[in-house]
Structure formats: C-alpha cells, structure tokens
C-alpha cells in the first residue's frame, strides 16, 4: 500500500472514530442532570414556565435525545457548531480564538518533555544500574506520580512568589511574543513533566535493549568510537518506541492542559472546556471534545508515518 493510500485510509477511519466520540460525549453531557436553561431559570425567579419552554425551543433543547443529536450533527455537518448560550458567540469563533494558546502550551510541554527525556534516557541507559541511572529513575517515577495541578501551584509558589522570576498571570501580549515564551516555561514544565518521565523510562529501556544487540558488539569490534555507535546507530533504533509514545502522549498533554490552563489562567481550550462544563455549554463541550479527538487521531497518524522514516522495514498495509 502506498503512503498516500495509507494516509487516506487512516483519515477516513477518523470519521467513525469521531462519530463514536460525538455520540458518547453527547449522551454523557445530556445524561448529567441539568441543562443551560434550568440554570438560567434557577437563577431568575421571575422566569415563567412559558418562557422556560420558549428558551428550550430556541436553543433546540426540546425533543428526545436522538432528535437533539440529529439536529446537532446536522448542523455540524453543514459547518455550524452552534452558539455559546451564555454569550451568543459562535462556538467555532471561540474554538479558533483559543486554539493558538493551547497549541503553544502543548508544543512547549512537548518540547520540554523531549528535551529532558531523551538525553536523560540515553544517559541512564549508558550508565545502567549506576547512581545516575537510579537517580534519574527515581526522578522519573516522581514525575509520573506528581499531580500536575500541585506541581503547577508549587512552580508558581517558588518561581513567581519566592524567586519573583515570573508573573503569576500571563502577560497581555501575542502568543509568540518573547515575554510570552518566558511565561510559558512554568506551565510548559507542568504539562510536560509526566510525559517527560514516561518518555525517559521508555527511552532508557529501549536504549538498553538495543545496546545488548549484536550489531553494537560488531560496531564496537569494528573499533567505531562509542559516541558514534550510540548517537548514530543505537539512538536511531531506540527512537521508534519513543516516537510512538510521544505521539500517544499528545493525548496526555491535551488532557493535562485542562488542569494546567486553569491553574495558570492560560486562556486556551482546556480552561474553556472546564468553564463550558460548569456552565452546561453543550455546544462548546461537544466542539472541544470533537476537536481534541480529531487532533489525537491526527497525532497517532503522524506517529505511524514517522515509523517508516525511522525504520524502513516497516511497510504500510
């Protein structure tokens, strides 16, 4: 199968996946008690039942669950994600305006994770069972275990309140402004730590495994410098599992950003999702979930493609 056909096939596969995601999310959102209208009504004693019924009809919240889903999916297929009940903005507009922030944070976290994890993993594998290895494994284990909201708060406490190097709140500049990049360091570390720890562990294991293989012995026997063996041959071969994991961790970074964005008051999709859930903003919840779903599928596709680049033996079929 050619690469193009493979990509096409995988992209087509996203349709049923996203359909499943949408059905599950829609059902869950509607099964939780309460809806935006009850909330509006609850907070205004003067709304009559008549007005409540009108509001419900206006927002398409009357009818059975399936009718509501059909209306919703119909609108989405024609490119209309609906409006935010609370502010009458279009959901698509909100999504587009929040996206750069989340991408920036995600990238930062991802880059942080890779920059920390790969060298540490390599170091640990080379120095297997020595002090450095044990230390880095303990750190990695802590990294996986620390809840990211706690880590975020601690980084704020130390970095902003004690050292005074950072502001607690984000500067009012464009996302790509240098000041913003400086600010992103703490949330980036927070969102990337768990991923860094996982990647480091996989890097170490897979590197250690490669180091035991015969071609390494051959290379050593051939008199290749150790540095060249590791960087040119072993590293590349050990990267395959790391790449898969890194792509998979996109999901964990996206999920982590929900909490991290709230702690750092970072105006991305994660914080938006939390507020949407609190406010029963069904359209917004649906759109963000679908979008992240799509994004994760895409990241996995990318990982599969990268496989081939790293290991020419892998064929798409």
């Amino acid at each position, binding site marked *: 199968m050619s690469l193009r056909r493979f990509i096409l096939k995988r992209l087509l596969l996203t349709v049923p996946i996203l359909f499943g995601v949408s059905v599950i999310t829609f059902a869950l959102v509607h099964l*939780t*008690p*309460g809806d*935006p209208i*009850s*909330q*509006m*009504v*609850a*907070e*205004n*004693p*003067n*709304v*009559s*039942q*008549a*007005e*409540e*019924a*009108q509001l419900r*009809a206006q927002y398409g919240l009357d009818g059975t669950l399936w009718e509501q889903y059909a209306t919703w999916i119909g609108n989405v297929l024609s490119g209309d994600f609906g409006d935010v*009940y*609370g*502010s*009458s*903005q279009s959901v698509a*507009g*909100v999504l587009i*305006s929040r996206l750069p922030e989340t991408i920036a944070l995600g990238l930062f976290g991802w880059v942080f994770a890779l920059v920390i994890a790969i060298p540490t993993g390599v170091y640990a594998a080379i120095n297997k069972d020595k002090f450095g290895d044990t230390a880095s494994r303990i750190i990695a284990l802590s990294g996986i275990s620390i809840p990211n909201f706690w880590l975020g*708060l601690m980084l*704020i*406490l130390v970095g*902003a*309140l004690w050292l*005074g190097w950072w*502001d*607690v*709140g984000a500067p*009012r500049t464009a996302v790509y402004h240098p000041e913003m990049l400086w600010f992103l360091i703490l949330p980036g570390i927070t969102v990337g730590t768990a991923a860094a720890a996982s990647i480091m562990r996989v890097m170490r294991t897979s590197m250690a495994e490669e180091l035991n293989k015969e071609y390494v012995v051959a290379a050593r026997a051939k008199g290749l410098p150790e540095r060249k063996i590791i960087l040119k041959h072993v590293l590349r071969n050990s990267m395959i599992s790391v790449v898969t994991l890194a792509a998979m961790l996109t999901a964990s970074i996206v999920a982590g950003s929900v909490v991290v964005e*709230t*702690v*750092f*008051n970072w*105006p991305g999709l994660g*914080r*938006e999702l939390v*507020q949407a859930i*609190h*406010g*029963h903003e069904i359209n917004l919840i649906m759109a963000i979930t679908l979008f992240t779903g799509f994004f994760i599928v895409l990241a996995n596709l990318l990982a599969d493609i990268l496989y081939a680049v790293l290991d020419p033996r892998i064929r798409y079929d």
Partner: protein
Amino acid sequence: MVKGDKQSRSAINRRRVLQGLGAAGVVSIAGCLGGSDDDEVSFPLDVRLEVDADNDDRVEWTQVIQQIMEDTGYFDVDIEQHSWDDYSDRVLDEEYQDNGYIAFIGLSGTFNPESFCDALHGTANQGQCCNLNGLGYDELDEMIDEARFGSDVADDPELRAERYDEIWHELADYRGSSLILHTTDEYVRNTDVHGFAPFPFSESTLSYALHSPIDEQVMWLDRSDATPDETDRSDLQEGGTLRFGVPANIASFDPPYSSDTTSTMSQELIFEQLITSDTEGNLQPWLAESYESLDVQDIERDAYEDYMTTASADEEGAIDVDEQVILTHPDDSPVADDEVRVLTPEGASDAVDDGVYGMQWRYHLHEGIEFHDGEELTAENVVLSVERYENSDLSAQTFDSLLHARQVDEYTVDLYAQIPDAEAERELPGIYIHSTEQASLEGGDLDPRQDNEPVGTGPYVFEEFEDEGYFIATKNESYWLEEKGIDALEWFDGPSDFPAGPVIDEVDMDIIPEDSTRSGQLQNDEIDVTYNLVSSTLNDFDSDDDFIVDSIESGGYQYFQYPVNVEPWDDDRLRKAVNHLVPREQIVDEVLDGWGEPAWTMIPELAQGSGTTDYDALESELKPHNEFDTEEAIKLIEEVIDDRGYESDV
C-alpha cells in the same frame, strides 16, 4: 446570563436570587421520610439533609447540624450531597417538597425586603426559586403582597415597615425555614489602594468604590505611599491604573442580555441609570436631574382586561405572542388554559392613553449629557432603552412592575407602573440607558465580540477586551458630571471640592477564575484588588500588613427549609425544635472563621430601610426564637411525641 460555575455562586445579580444549589442523583430509600400517610412516624426520627457538594462551607455546617441533631438522641440523620451545577433540577421541582428532605441552600437578597420573604415562602414560588419545600399559605401571601403593592403602603413607608415587621414575626412563628447566617463579601486589596469601600451587592462595588457622590466615596491609587490606611481625601492622587482581579469572564456587555456579576461590574463603568443608590439603599436622581411621583391610582391588575389580547398557550405554558407580555390576566393560567389574555406594549400604551395605570413617575433629565459617541441624551433614549428590555433576558424582572415609558418632551420622560408599588421608585428606573444607535441592536449584539463596542454616558469608555483575558476601560475625558461640576447634583451636600468623577485613569479587569492563581497574583503585585477568595486565604491576607481585607454584609443569606407538607414536619413545634439546634454563632466563628453574621432575623441589617420600623428591636424580639437551646428543643420534641402519640425509643 448566569454561568453556573463555582465562581458565580455568590456572583449573581442583585435581582437574581438563587445563590448556590446542587443536584439530582439517586433517590435512596434510607433516610427517606416519604410523603404518604402510611409511614409510621417514630423517634428517633429518620431525617435526610440535602446540600450541594461544591460549597465546602455549606457542607461543613450541615454536618455540624447533623451531629447536634443526632446528639439529642431524637434523630437519625443522613446527609446527601449533590453537585451544585445540577441541584437546581432537583430542588426546583414542584414534587421535591413531597420527599420530606431538609434542603440547605443560599440566596442573595436586594434592598427590597420582599426578597427575604417571598422567594422562600411565597406560594407562587413553590417549586421555583426558592421555595423548595412548599412553604407558605394564602394569608402569608397576602401579607407579603400587601407590604409592597397597594396605594396605602406606596404612600406610607412607616405602614409598610410595620407590615414587614408583622411578616418577620409571622415567619418566626410559622418556622418554615431556618436562616443560619447572613453572608458577607470580602475584598482584598494592597495598600496602594486608598478610599476603597465596597457596595453591599458586589455587581455595583467597582463603580461605587471608584466614585459615588451619594456617600462621598472616591478611590485613588498611591503607589509610593508608605502609610497604608491613610484615606484622607486631602492626600488624594489623580491618575494611575487600577488592576482588578475578577473570578469569572464577562459574559456580555449587553445589559439586558446578561446578569452575572462581572458583566454587570464592567457595564456599570460604561452605562448609567436614571437614579443611583447609596449603601443603605437610599435613592437619588442621577442621569435624571430630578424625579417625582405624579399620580397614584388604586387599581388592580385586572383593570387592564379591556386592553388585553387573547393568545394561545401550549401545554407547557408557552404563550404564542411575539411582543413582550407585560402581564397575564390574573384569572388565566398559561399552563392550565389553552388561551390566555395578555397585555402587550401596544395595549399598555392604549391603557396609559386612557389614563389606566397604577403609578406615574416623571423624570427630568440633565440637559447636555453626551454618550461616548457624541450623541446627546434625551427622553427618547430612555423610551428606546425600555423597549430594548422587552423580550430580553431581563424582561421578566423589568416588567414585573413597569407598564410603559413615554416621552413628555425632549428632556422629560414618564414611567408608569402597573399597580401601586412601594418599590416603584427603585424598580421602575432600574435599567441602563443606551444610545439611539445601540438601542436598535439585536439582543446580545451589543458586545465587542459582535464588533459593537459598548457606548454609554458613564465615567469610563470601553478601550479593549480580550475574551476570558482582560477588559480595559479608560477615563471618559468629557464626562458630563465633570463638565457640569459636582454642584449639578442638587442633592449633593458634601464639600464643593469633591471630585465630580473618578480620579483613576484606567481600570484593568483581569479575568482569573482560579482562586489560588488570583490570590497569587495579588501577592505578587500583579493585581490591586480582588474578591471571592476562600476563608483560609482571607485569614492570611488579613494578618499581612501589606494587604487590607474589607468585609461587607452582602445581603445574601444561607438557610434550610423544612418539608412542611410531610408528617411530622407539619408540626411547627418540631421545626422550632430543630431551629433551636442550629448553633449560629459557632458556625460563623468556626466554619467561616468569622467571615459572616449569625442570622437572628430573616432580613439583614443592610436591607432594613423599608423592611422594619426598628431593626434593633426586631432583632432582640426574634433572637430568642433562634438561639441555640438544646433543652428547649428536647422539650418541644417531647411535646410533639406526646400530643401526636408517636412511638419513641429515645
């Protein structure tokens, strides 16, 4: 509209009542009293308390009360918690009252004393906000109605106050609900902020603190000052940027289409109303130079019968009319009837033409007031603004008393009330005045997100808004009051050098939903003032010399309601007994670290204006009903058991 997030729990407009509720879920059999007569009542009595899990403080005092009830030996008490976001569905249901549960909630009040009795005990509010347990009866409804509506109380505040006094005594005797405490709002600021004083209802705090001649209130910044508590106005400094941290996004800049606190806070910088209020609820003219009551006619709501049109109503009670329904005929019910008679704006206008109205109030506007876009304010703006509230999100509350607005001449406008209303002076002109251009915008479109920057007459001009990020307002360089001078306010009796407008150049509202982030930013000098922090954080700030915590009675209250329609709770002695088991002082001191006021009366002190003839007397009369007294409680319970012949193993 109100977002149901945690931050908006106490962030609800002064006329919005529900403060914090929580949710549905599995109805368990254990601890259920049941509504049917077959259930044997026996002591120890199974009791279920219900509370929303999102409000830690509320859960805590519910547990305190549970413990005390169990300690008497007469009750087996379960607590069921629900998430706040969904609690409304559960408790705001007509059938909830039959469960026999005791529901714990909180509300925010207004300067209108009615908000402390009707919402909880009005039979019309059963199954709505916030009469959850079917409290109330006809005589009480009548008492509540007669304390606000009718020409006698509209003319005679003393009579009105007497009627409310009777209501508070009646409520203490009926004991359908137990108030636990009156809530307070806490604002934390750094010592650069001088002259800050919060308004009782938080949505007005920012504009009030910045500049409010009615209490000679003005705020300024002094970034260099070493004497933090120096608030002498002779040290006043002009200029600077105030950084105000708010816990929720600005949902909309469109006044009739929003009601959350942060939206109103921002709107209050830009828009103004015909009148203004001090912290005690006293009113003075504002955009109006003066106003007067021209006429009161003693009519009832059915007097509009001839001006009503007939409209069909569907099963759920939706009335099929495009226009605003100003009132529905008192004899018709949209839910029960297929057709109802309704009064629309056209009919209301005809009624006023024929001299049918309850009250006529006349407002004389200041001449020469300009909107930020240069348009001059005239009576027409008032009429158009009232029309903009028709069929808006706030239409129900706007037209609960308002009948019609009519331009008399360029600077004179009349507002008509449906029937004589003692709250008319406050309620009728309670809308923001819009420019002609913006008054014609579609509902919700008056918002920078819809490419319409709000334009008002207010002291600050819209500058920039980043959704969920920040809002910047800069000083209106041609503010009408500054151009006219403070003496343009005839009622102002303060010093003539009192500033005629706010002295701070720029207000930055930073939207920071997470409490810990907001308090971190305050500590790190990234914001100057914030509110809605948890009580433990408040203690830290309070003991820190670099920060000042201002606490103000906010008009909100926390309470629980007895299922009066379910045996044995239909016996008022049992309700009074449990009421004596509420340790109000202990709850305020230990659960809230002192950030609250024990509730001895139904009405908080700040709303006393027309709500009682003598607050201290009322408090001392009602306090004995509400004091913690286990012996009295046990005596009452024993009485109930003996009289009703209930089984008891106690």
